[in-house]
């Protein structure tokens, strides 16, 4: 594990004071550069597990179903922001085995609609302090995101989006063709199908190490007293007189005063345990990585017209992907047509990557909503809450989603940055259709 030290700031101090209280839990080891060097000198024998492996207790104040990024960050912020530590996260597999460990790690705040804009802006600010906050190197790298455009009309749309980003307090720079050339000289600018007119640069956009985000939140939650319970699948939700009482699991019944459903692609199944039918259809999204190469792509590049995006991981692999496979699926693997499409789009945009060898491809199950935006809300059952509908954009949302879901579960009120993520918006027509593609689950 690579650990980077950061100058102490107020977050660090907050974390330290919280951590002291749990020193007796056997897991108070603080990571630092010095520690890495010392451990290296003595054969790395001094490291202890980053979190405990407790058996489930009979009852908790809060049970979180799902140990992905959003479930773990919700547990962390319940403890950190609201002092609620009698919490269990129930995960059917191992922590990080879902989408949190399968995504292409783009972190950005370039949303446009009020409702989305303030939420992702808040999330990016949390990302910017996350490593110090968690005392964990999540490898957040603000290398800049460039969204390309290929016509006058598209340029106008990006000017408008850029202004919306600036109005929100985030950063956006309009680049003409020469401007893009300075950053990305290796693109094929004159390709006949989609000649490149320019791009919208979001300098604070970038990537992070996906697993590390799950591990960092897991360790932080554990240190504050949260029980992380793996190999524990929720099979039922106990409700009496319209009030949630607990859950049934493969490791027995667990009582709880409050329960949060945070299971991404499996949202429909778990919500059905509480008699709910969600505005969600699950779809498969694929991604690809090449063998490790020397540094060649410094930014995150998004080629929307070709449905292709790419960045280079710190290990050197080119990480890229495209659209959904477009049919409902729970298979965490896709089909050949989208593989071909993504490769073709990549070759159209940047022929220089043609000789890189693809190492792996994989798929993840996306909880797609009809407007492409998420839900963080109460349900018709008292004490039962739901956080879902992250589509293929939920990695960047992990900090703010946990922050807002914890706020909702602790106070009963929506957090101000997540106020529009209501379940009822579909019935009332207050959709948040960022891409303007209409009420079809696979078109966002």
């Amino acid at each position: 594990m690579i650990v980077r030290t950061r100058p102490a700031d107020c977050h660090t101090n907050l974390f330290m004071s919280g951590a002291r209280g749990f020193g007796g839990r056997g897991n108070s080891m603080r990571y630092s550069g010095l520690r890495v060097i010392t451990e290296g000198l003595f054969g790395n024998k001094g490291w202890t597990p980053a979190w405990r492996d407790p058996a489930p207790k009979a009852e908790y104040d809060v049970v979180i179903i799902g140990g992905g990024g959003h479930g773990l960050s919700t547990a962390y912020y319940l403890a950190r922001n609201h002092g609620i530590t009698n919490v269990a996260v129930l995960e059917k597999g191992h922590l990080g085995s879902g989408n949190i460990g399968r995504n292409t790690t783009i972190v950005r705040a370039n949303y446009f609609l009020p409702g989305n804009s303030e939420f992702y802006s808040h999330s990016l600010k949390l990302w910017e302090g996350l490593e110090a906050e968690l005392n964990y190197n999540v490898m957040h790298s603000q290398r800049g995101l460039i969204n390309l455009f290929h016509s006058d009309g598209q340029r106008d749309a990006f000017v408008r989006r850029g202004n919306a980003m600036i109005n929100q307090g985030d950063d956006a720079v309009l680049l003409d063709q020469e401007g893009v050339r300075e950053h990305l000289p290796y693109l094929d600018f004159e390709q006949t199908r989609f000649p490149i007119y320019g791009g919208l640069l979001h300098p604070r956009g970038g990537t992070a190490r996906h697993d590390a985000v799950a591990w960092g939140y897991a360790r932080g939650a554990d240190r504050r007293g949260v029980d992380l319970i793996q190999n524990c699948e929720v099979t039922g939700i106990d409700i009496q007189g319209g009030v949630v009482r607990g859950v049934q699991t493969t490791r027995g019944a667990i009582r709880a005063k409050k329960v949060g459903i945070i299971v991404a692609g499996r949202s429909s199944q778990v919500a059905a345990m509480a008699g709910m039918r969600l505005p969600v259809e699950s779809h498969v999204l694929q991604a690809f990585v090449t063998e490790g190469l020397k540094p060649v792509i410094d930014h995150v590049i998004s080629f929307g017209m070709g449905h292709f995006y790419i960045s280079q991981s710190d290990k050197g692999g080119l990480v890229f992907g495209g659209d959904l496979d477009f049919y409902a699926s729970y298979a965490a693997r896709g089909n050949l047509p989208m593989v071909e499409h993504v490769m073709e789009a990549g070759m159209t945009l940047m022929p220089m990557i043609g000789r890189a060898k693809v190492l792996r491809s994989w798929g993840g199950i996306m909880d797609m909503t009809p407007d492409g935006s998420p839900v963080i809300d109460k349900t018709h059952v008292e004490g039962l809450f739901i956080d879902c509908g992250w589509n293929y954009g939920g990695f960047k949302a992990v900090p703010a989603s946990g922050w807002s879901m914890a706020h909702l579960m602790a106070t009963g009120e929506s957090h101000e940055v997540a106020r529009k993520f209501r379940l009822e918006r579909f019935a009332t027509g207050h959709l948040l259709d960022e891409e303007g593609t209409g009420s079809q689950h696979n078109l966002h």
Partner: protein
Amino acid sequence: MRLKCPLCGDRDRREFYYYGAEDFLNRPEAADPGSAWDDYLHNRDNPAGVTKDLWYHEAGCSQWLLVARNTVTHEISAVELVAERTA
């Protein structure tokens, strides 16, 4: 993935356009309550297992098909023409 069109036979997935779940066939009446329209447009069973969904044979006979398909294994068990649907 290949779909067996009742008119054209076994064809590659690339020839088809996927629209969504069978629910889109059950269009409410104009006078029906908003909740019926909400269900029609948004809410889905979204099963992990056998589902029925709508595919359009765009590069073939231009027929709408109702496909019984397993969302976990991608196995296709039945394909019928929407135009000749009985149920």
